[in-house]
């Protein structure tokens, strides 16, 4: 028992102190806020019930009722009292359950009520990355990126979710609960980010080898900054000028890279892997596994199978200077 108390104390400390970048207890939007509150209400009620039962049990075990010689000799009065007590608690349980169900249902109605979204984003889950497309009216404005979702602060965002291989689940805990991405089906999830920031999310449905490293980040920007980001992303990749990056580009469009990746404005146009047109403008690489840096890019290009075993990007043999210039080229894709 004492052990338990210590542990609960530890738990409380932990929860109060916790602000993990990817935590349901660290809400950064109205939906997540609501969910967190609902969670705490349920926790409070349930803990209270558990505690009550434990106390009654302990007392019952501690108080030594008079020993009976014949186990079948039951005291009518005591039995009747037990009947009353038990029926009372059962009724209590029933009422609690009804109350909690009602509460849950009300929140459900509020949380999932479809809102007029300011912006709609199509997210496709693949093994093991996220393809992100911004639906705009003008076809020249088409924006494609990967593993990163930029959203305007304070605006309701709708995310249309689907998958092309296996089932994945879209989950950014500090913004909203999760929703599955299922082949041959489209689900829609809505959320709003209250304040600017970077919120990490992760695939929550087992999807194979790299399920553990299928992360994504949501970047919430003030509306004007978001607009500039959007327009910059819609542009094709900048032409490299310095020779090293020119060489890098040649390698990109002649070696294995272009077989899977797209860089708009070059001959590389395959849709198998993430769109790299503005690769260097991203926060992370390898689906939110490594922070964006020259060293990490090199490591990833050189040995993806070592960093994420089983990932679909093959180890492509490159000479050191080929690698150098390729990395420079990638770094320049802003």
């Amino acid at each position, binding site marked *: 028992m004492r052990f338990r108390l210590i542990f609960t104390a530890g738990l409380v400390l932990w929860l109060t102190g916790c602000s993990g970048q990817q935590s349901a207890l660290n809400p950064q939007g109205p939906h997540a806020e609501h969910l967190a509150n609902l969670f705490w209400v349920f926790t409070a009620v349930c803990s209270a019930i558990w505690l009550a039962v434990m106390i009654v049990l302990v007392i019952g075990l501690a108080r030594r009722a008079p020993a009976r010689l014949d186990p079948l000799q039951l005291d009518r009065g005591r039995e009747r009292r037990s009947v009353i007590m038990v029926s009372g608690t059962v009724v209590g349980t029933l009422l609690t359950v009804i109350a909690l169900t009602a509460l849950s249902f009300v929140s459900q109605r509020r949380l999932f009520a479809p809102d007029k979204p300011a912006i709609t984003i199509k997210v496709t889950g693949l093994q093991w990355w996220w393809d992100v497309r911004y639906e705009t009216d003008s076809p020249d404005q088409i924006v494609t990126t990967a593993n990163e979702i930029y959203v305007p602060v304070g605006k309701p965002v709708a995310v249309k979710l689907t998958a092309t291989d296996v089932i994945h689940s879209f989950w950014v805990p500090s913004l909203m609960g999760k929703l599955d991405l299922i082949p041959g089906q489209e689900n829609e999830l809505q959320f709003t980010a209250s304040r600017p920031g970077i919120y990490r999310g992760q695939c929550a449905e087992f999807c194979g080898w790299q399920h553990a490293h299928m992360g994504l980040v949501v970047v919430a920007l003030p509306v004007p900054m978001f607009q500039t980001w959007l327009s910059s992303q819609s542009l094709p990749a900048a032409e490299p000028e310095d020779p090293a990056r020119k060489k890098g580009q040649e390698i990109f469009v002649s070696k*294995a890279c272009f077989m899977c990746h797209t860089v708009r404005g070059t001959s590389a146009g395959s849709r198998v892997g993430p769109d790299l047109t503005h690769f260097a403008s991203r926060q992370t690489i390898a689906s939110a596994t490594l922070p964006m840096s020259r060293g990490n890019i090199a490591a990833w290009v050189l040995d993806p199978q070592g960093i994420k075993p089983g990932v679909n990007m093959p180890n492509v*043999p490159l000479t050191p200077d080929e690698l150098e210039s390729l990395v420079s080229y990638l770094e320049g894709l802003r």
Partner: protein
Amino acid sequence: MIRVLVIAASLALAACEREDRPLRSEPVPGEQREAIALASNSPGQGGPVEKKSGTRGEYEKVAFHVSQGKKLFTWYNCAGCHANGGGGSGPALMDDVWIYGSAIENIAASIREGRPNGMPSFREKIPEDQIWQIAAFVRALGGFVASDVASSRHDEMYAHEGEARLPAPPQRASAQPGLAQPK
């Protein structure tokens, strides 16, 4: 019990190899290329010469490789010319006609070096181990791969039975690959 044991034992050895999931192929970096005399680019006449080290044979014994090959076959748009194996602007891969040889080494060579009349060379463009995976899948299309290794249907529109259910090729085709005359 005996019977179960016998079956188990017989499957055991096959199973181990079949179920490998080799994630990292060659020692990285650098690719040792299979040293084989290429099939003569002119069809017919005795068919291609073949020299195998045999080391690449394991690609068509590993279910994972064949299924990767099937995935890459789509991703790299081989279907663009060869359709789902039925052939289009490129030759069919499901019949028993193997202009440049049906051995996995010949198929890999065809992919890597390309062939006249449109088959491009994927040297440098497709990593060596992936070439062998695709070659293994093409073997499966031809019905040369054991049915417990060959790939099954994919979650897509029905084109033809999964490779595992394709009929094995007639003897001559598999015995002396390439002898069959081009259409």
